[in-house]
């Protein structure tokens, strides 16, 4: 398995975990309806249970992006043999892509970066106009497509 395949597989695994977590959240919701103090016996409050459900998508966007960022940094340091640490904007948009990348694939991956930054830094606010809200399904697709254009022999 090439490193590229390995990294793409990790993204897929996180997205699959998200689907499992969605099922778990549904089951938890049903349980909380029947027994609102269900969390008390397990050391968490009803509010935390609701927070888990509401923030599930955001949590997995952050995780997917963390995998992606680690991949790009690894590619930059190990494959491109650079000892610099460019900001992700530079790395994602300029330093890594060459003409084998479609501009749409770069822009889509960058939409995930911008949205993730919003989730991390301003999660209490509504997204500003220039932010595209990206679902976990789309984020996985966008980041995977980006990685698939990186060099195979990395």
């Amino acid at each position, binding site marked *: 398995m*090439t490193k590229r395949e390995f990294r793409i597989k990790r993204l897929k695994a996180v997205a699959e975990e998200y689907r499992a977590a969605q099922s778990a959240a549904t089951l938890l919701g049903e349980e909380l309806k029947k027994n609102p103090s269900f969390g008390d016996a397990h050391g968490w409050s009803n509010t935390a249970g609701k927070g888990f459900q509401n923030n599930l*998508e*955001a949590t997995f966007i952050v995780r997917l992006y963390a995998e992606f960022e680690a991949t790009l940094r690894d590619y930059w340091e190990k*494959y*491109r*043999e650079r000892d610099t640490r460019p900001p992700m904007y530079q790395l994602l948009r*300029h*330093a890594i*892509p*060459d*003409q*084998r*990348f*479609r*501009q*749409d694939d*770069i*822009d889509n991956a960058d*939409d995930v970066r911008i949205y993730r930054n919003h989730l991390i830094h301003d999660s209490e606010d*509504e997204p500003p*106009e*220039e932010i*595209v*809200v*990206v*679902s976990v399904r*789309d984020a996985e697709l966008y980041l995977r497509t980006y990685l698939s254009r990186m*060099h*195979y*022999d990395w």
Partner: protein
Amino acid sequence: VVVETDMLPRPAEFIQDVRRAARLEQKPKVLTDSSKLGPDQIAAALHGAAIWLTPKIVEKYASEDFGECPADQQERLRLAVETFRGVAGEVPPDKPATGDQLARGLTAFHELLAAVRDVVLREWTNAVERFIRDAEGWVAESGWRSRRVERQVNEALLGTYPLPQLQVFAEADLYVFDPVGRFVPGGMGAYDLAIQPSYYLTSLYRDYDGRWYGRLDVGRGIEGAARFPWDKEAFLGCLRELRSLV
């Protein structure tokens, strides 16, 4: 390869600005996919997200840059730019567009997108036709066979459109020219050339001078991937090198 937009030739910059605006205009559709937003927020986003409605989008337009287009396309583009510039210029930079401005702006913007799309697509598909025809000629001269297959490509601004994939049957090997797209960093279109089945490929792209170049980076790492002009000799060299890797 670091590509900064300020290095682009002027017509390419204009086209990129319109393409970026086309993505922005499509954003509210993306917002509706999110379970995090309610109908009120979506309505507010639709109304407030008219950030594409600015004359800046057409700032880099110069009619003389499109002198090689057919006269009717040139005229349509000129008119679309003028109309859009007029409507977008009515919106104060510090206030949101009114309903009327938004409606007229949207009509003008869609006409602008259609006009630019036609110009870009005509030029790009003509370039691809010449590129593929050259390859077909080299294949025939070498006594091999080739076959065209239509592929659907989808890109911002251009939408979904067909481009040819070329399959080359050279003795026992299959090579495929596969379209990447018109919008790629640092170029005006790209194709992959791969030996199948494998990961190995040559990246072929069209530079801003309109010429095609190759970059055979297989087995060398990206730093060793110098570009070379695309011609028959380069084509045959790429096939040999790809063949040696499988």
